[in-house]
Every structure is written in structure tokens, then in C-alpha cells.
């Protein structure tokens, strides 16, 4: 890796003055000037409480912010001089390093800078956190670093407590599909907080993928999938309640689909030699409790979600016909005509729909960005069906349904493999 190209002179100078470290925590402070001090305090406290003997560094990637000067002043310098917890004496000097990127850094650029710094400093355990997350605590930082530093894992994905009706894309698509195809049951591949080893950082840094749009938007999922497909040790760690105000988390469903499903499909394409031969999924070691569901009241307009599904499928019929298998498409058209009360998006149809989308993405039957956007109405249909089916379900029942969906994804994997390998003829 050419650090001289990726890392600025100023950053190199800062890194050289740090020397080797044991632990590195990276974050991107872009658009998070108001919360960055809270994040820094949490990380510092975590270091002083949990890693007294380790050499530590915080790498803050910023750029393009109006309040950059303020952030920079907080982000640089010797850690030990800034925060001292009463009764705790740190045995090592800790450092902060700030990487100023010209212009707003994308998630990909920020991660690449952090990986380059980790590689140069020979960090053993690293974590990326989001300063915009309002619930970042010293414990959550430690929970990401500890399995790597002490238990020799290579990738740590977070687990959260969240509302039962939130995170439905992760629950109904990203988690079961990635688990069935990549054989590893990591629940939160798409998150703003995760941990990784120095070995994994070096591997990812040397991949020639950083120019890819999928990597620029959501590099963490690619990093997780790289770890799984390269036989690195992966685990999950419970971090507490999921913050919905995390930076970079788009609220527009189409944008979220482009960032997450687009990246997942891209990873399928990039790692096809691996997942096509991959066997059944294996459980992942988990530190702390498994993910938890709460039942806080939510303001959801089910009727609007259903109407957007119905109108979307009707209006996008020519596009969907070029993506979906004719049988799948006709089944979807038949459920569109059902009354709202009787409508259900059955799991086998949902899985086949997604596998058709994945295969069509692979064969590029239409523009790939358009293809991912065309999934939005169908996702809304699945969301509506889920909300109706689980209006009175207990967390255990929802978990059982989730397991059944995962099983359906695994059961139908041969269908995807068949469509994936099929040659698509250009009709004259």
C-alpha cells in the first residue's frame, strides 16, 4: 500500500510520533462537530478503565466541516493530558491523531485512512465508532475491542437492543440473506460500529476495491464479508440500545437500499467463487446477551406503506418483468390484487423475489442502480406484511419467525445458484 499517496505528510508526521500501538479507535467526525467531544470522552474513558497497560490511539478523520477547527483542536494531542479519571492512573501514553481530508470524506475514504493508520502503527485491535451515535459509551468501545485483543477474534459485529418494528431491512433481508449465502450468522453487517484485527485491516487495505461505489458507501459490510470468506474468526458483541441518529444512516428507504442491498449484491458478485461453494450457515460466538427487542409505541402508517407497495408494483411492471422470473412476477401480481386485510407476503415468495433480484443484478439485465431502486416497493410490501403478522407477537415469536425465514433462504439457495449460473441470452 502506498501510504505516501493515501496519507498526507501531516498525518504521517503525527503517526510517526505515535509509534506502535496495541489499540486503535477510528472515527469520522464529518458532520458530527456537536457530538465528537462526547465520543472522544467515551473512548478515552474506555481506554483508562479497560486498557490501562495498552498503547492506544484515536484516529479522527475529518474534512469539509465548518466547525473543523473546533474538532481539530479536540482531536489532536496527548490524551493523557486531557482527561484523567479520578482514581485511575494510565500506565501508557495515549494519543489522538487527526486526518484532514480535503472535502467531506465518504465512509470508504474514512475507513481506508483508518486502516492505513492501523497498518502503519501495527495496531493489534481496532474499532470504528460513530461520533454521531448518542449512546456511545466506554463499555461499548471496550466491547468492540476486547474480543479482538483478548480472545484473538478478527471481526466483531455489534448487537443491539432495538424496537421490535425497527431494523426490518436487516431482519428480513440483510441478515437472513447474508447468513444463508455466506454461511455466517452475523446480524448486523451494516452498522456504524464494529471491530477488527490488524491482520484483517492489512488484508482489506491491500484489496483493489476502494474505488467501488459500494465500498465508498458501506465499507463495513464488505469488511465483514471479507473476514467471513477469508476464514478469519468472527464474533458479535452486545453494545446496548441502537441509536437511530447515527451519522451516515440514511432515512430515505431508497437510499438505504442502494447503500445496503447494493453493497450486498456487489459483495455477492465479488465473492461468488466463495459463496457458491459455501455450505450451511454456522452460529457466531456472541459476547453479552443476544439482540433484544423492545415494544415502545411507534407511529407507523401501515395503509400508506401498503398503498406504496401496490402502486409501485403496478407502475413498475415493465421493469419488474425484466428482473423477476415470470412465475415469481405473476405471483406478486396476484397478491397485489388482494385486499389490504388479506394481504400476506409469504416468506418463500419473498426469498425467491430477492434471489431473482440478485441474479438479475449479476446478469445486469438493467442498470444496476435502477434494479436496486425497483426493490423498494416490494420491500414495502414485505414490511406491511410483517407489521400485520407480528402486531401481537412476542419477541420470542418474532425470533422464531426470523429463524424460519433464515431457513427459507438456505432452502432456496440452489434456486439462486441455478439462476446465477444460467446464461442470459440477448433476444433479437
Amino acid at each position: 500500500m502506498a501510504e505516501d499517496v493515501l496519507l498526507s505528510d501531516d498525518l504521517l508526521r503525527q503517526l510517526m510520533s505515535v509509534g506502535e500501538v496495541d489499540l486503535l479507535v477510528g472515527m469520522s467526525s464529518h458532520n458530527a462537530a456537536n457530538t465528537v467531544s462526547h465520543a472522544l470522552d467515551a473512548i478515552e474513558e474506555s481506554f483508562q478503565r479497560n486498557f490501562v497497560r495498552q498503547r492506544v490511539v484515536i484516529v479522527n478523520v475529518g474534512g469539509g466541516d465548518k466547525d473543523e477547527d473546533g474538532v481539530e483542536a479536540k482531536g489532536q494531542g496527548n490524551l493523557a493530558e486531557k482527561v484523567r479519571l479520578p482514581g485511575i492512573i494510565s500506565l501508557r501514553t495515549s494519543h489522538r491523531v487527526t486526518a484532514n481530508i480535503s472535502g467531506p470524506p465518504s465512509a470508504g475514504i474514512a475507513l481506508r485512512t483508518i486502516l492505513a493508520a492501523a497498518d502503519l502503527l501495527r495496531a493489534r485491535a481496532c474499532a470504528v465508532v460513530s461520533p454521531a451515535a448518542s449512546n456511545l459509551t466506554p463499555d461499548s468501545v471496550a466491547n468492540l475491542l476486547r474480543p479482538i485483543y483478548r480472545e484473538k477474534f478478527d471481526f466483531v459485529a455489534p448487537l443491539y437492543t432495538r424496537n421490535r418494528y425497527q431494523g426490518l431491512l436487516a431482519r428480513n433481508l440483510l441478515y437472513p440473506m447474508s447468513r444463508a449465502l455466506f454461511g455466517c450468522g452475523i446480524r448486523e453487517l451494516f452498522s456504524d460500529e464494529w471491530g477488527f484485527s490488524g491482520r484483517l485491516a492489512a488484508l482489506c487495505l491491500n484489496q483493489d476495491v476502494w474505488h467501488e461505489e459500494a465500498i465508498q458507501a458501506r465499507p463495513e459490510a464488505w469488511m465483514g464479508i471479507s473476514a467471513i470468506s477469508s476464514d478469519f474468526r468472527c464474533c458479535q458483541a452486545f453494545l446496548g440500545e441502537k441509536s437511530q441518529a447515527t451519522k451516515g444512516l440514511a432515512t430515505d428507504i431508497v437510499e438505504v437500499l442502494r447503500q445496503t442491498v447494493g453493497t450486498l449484491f456487489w459483495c455477492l458478485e465479488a465473492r461468488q467463487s466463495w459463496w457458491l461453494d459455501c455450505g450451511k450457515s454456522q452460529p457466531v460466538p456472541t459476547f453479552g446477551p443476544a439482540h433484544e427487542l423492545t415494544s415502545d409505541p411507534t407511529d407507523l402508517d401501515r395503509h400508506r406503506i401498503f398503498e406504496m407497495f401496490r402502486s409501485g408494483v403496478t407502475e413498475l411492471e415493465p421493469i419488474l418483468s425484466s428482473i423477476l422470473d415470470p412465475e415469481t412476477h405473476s405471483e406478486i401480481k396476484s397478491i397485489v390484487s388482494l385486499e389490504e386485510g388479506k394481504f400476506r407476503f409469504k416468506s418463500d415468495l419473498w426469498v425467491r423475489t430477492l434471489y431473482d433480484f440478485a441474479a438479475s443484478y449479476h446478469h445486469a439485465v438493467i442498470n444496476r442502480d435502477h434494479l436496486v431502486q425497483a426493490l423498494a416497493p416490494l420491500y414495502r410490501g414485505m414490511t406491511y406484511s410483517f407489521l400485520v403478522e407480528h402486531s401481537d407477537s412476542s419477541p420470542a415469536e418474532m425470533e422464531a419467525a426470523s429463524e424460519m425465514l433464515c431457513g427459507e433462504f438456505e432452502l432456496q439457495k440452489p434456486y439462486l445458484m441455478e439462476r446465477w449460473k444460467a446464461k442470459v441470452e440477448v433476444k433479437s
Partner: protein
Amino acid sequence: MRQTILRGLEQVYGNLVHMIAEFLPRFLVMLIIIVIGLLVALALKYILRALLGLTKLDRVSDDAGASRVLRMAHLPPMTELLSRSIFWVTWIGFILVGLSVLRVAGLQEQISRLFQFLPEVFVAILILFLGAVIANFLSRTALLAAVNAGHPSPKILSWSIRFVIWILAISMTLEELGVARQTVISAFSIIFGASMLGLAIAFGLGGQDLARKCLERYLGDTKKKEDKEPQPL
């Protein structure tokens, strides 16, 4: 008298023989040129087809939506279309060169005119093709964006975009070919201006409620709308 007639016939016969003697080699040259042209055109066709096959042009064409346009027009896939085009262009070129060897009065002038016109025809075809690709891509983009944003009439929006781009492409094509230049420009300006004015009036006056809703949607408080759907992640 008899001698004169015989001499005249002899002269005509001599001229005919001379003409045939002059024409036959030229005709043979023309045939040779046409046959060579056929071989060259066939070779170019197969070379181009192989090269385009390597570059996966058909996939790019599918991706851009051009294949669909070609299918709608009952045309072959992009690779086949281009390789067939190069075959015909090359062979027709050789045929015209061959014909010019015959030195038929007036024909040479027409041939040279046709050669001068060929680049404009190519540019016109290219403009039309690019117009079709862009119209298809942008109309699909608009359709997806409108559907996912919950707009009431996404197909109208999509077809409007397709229509405007097609009109623009056809006008540019006709202008390139020099077909009634002034009329085309005037017609385009009138149709385009009238359409836009008509849409603006229809939207502003006829669809006041819709206009208000759209403005509220884009400029108003979006928080309430976001809360209506569950957080995906």
C-alpha cells in the same frame, strides 16, 4: 449509294466494337471491385463482431436500455446491428467506386454527392440512437424516483421526459440531415415551448392542490413523513 451504306454500317460496327472493347474491361474492373468489396465487407463484419463480442457491448447496451429500444424497433442486438452496418456501408462504398469506373455521364457527380452526404447520415443515426438510449435511461430513472416517492402519476412524468428527449433528438437529426432546417427549428421551438407552457399552466392553475402538496412535500417539514415508515436498519 450501296458503298456509302456499307461504309456507314462498318463505321457503326467499328464504333460498337470499340465501345464494347472499351466498356468490357471497365465492367470487369467494376465486377472485380464489387467482389473485392464483398470480401472486404465480410471480413470487416466478422472482425468487428468478434471485437464487439470481446468488449461485451450487448451487456452495456442492455444496461443502458438500448437493447429494449432495438427490440421494439424489430432490430437485431447492438453487436449484430453494428457489424451488419459496417458490412453494408463498406460494400455499398465499393459498389459506388465500381460504378464510377464505368464513367457513365452524370453518374459520377451523383456518386460524389452521395459520398459527401454519408457522414451526415451517420451522425444523424448516431444522434437518434443516443437520443433513444438517453430517453430510455432518464425516463426509467424518473419513473423509479416518482414511484418510490409516492407521486400520484409517475408514468406521466416518465413519458413526458421520454417525449421531450425524443422530440429533441428527432429535431437534431432532421437538422443534421438538412431537411427543412428552418421549419424544423421553428416547429421544435413551438412544440417545446407550447408543451412547457401548457404543463406549467395545467400544473399551476388546473392542479393547484397538487402543486401545493408537491411544494409542501419538498419544502415543508419532512420529519413527520419519515416517522411513518419503520427504520430499515
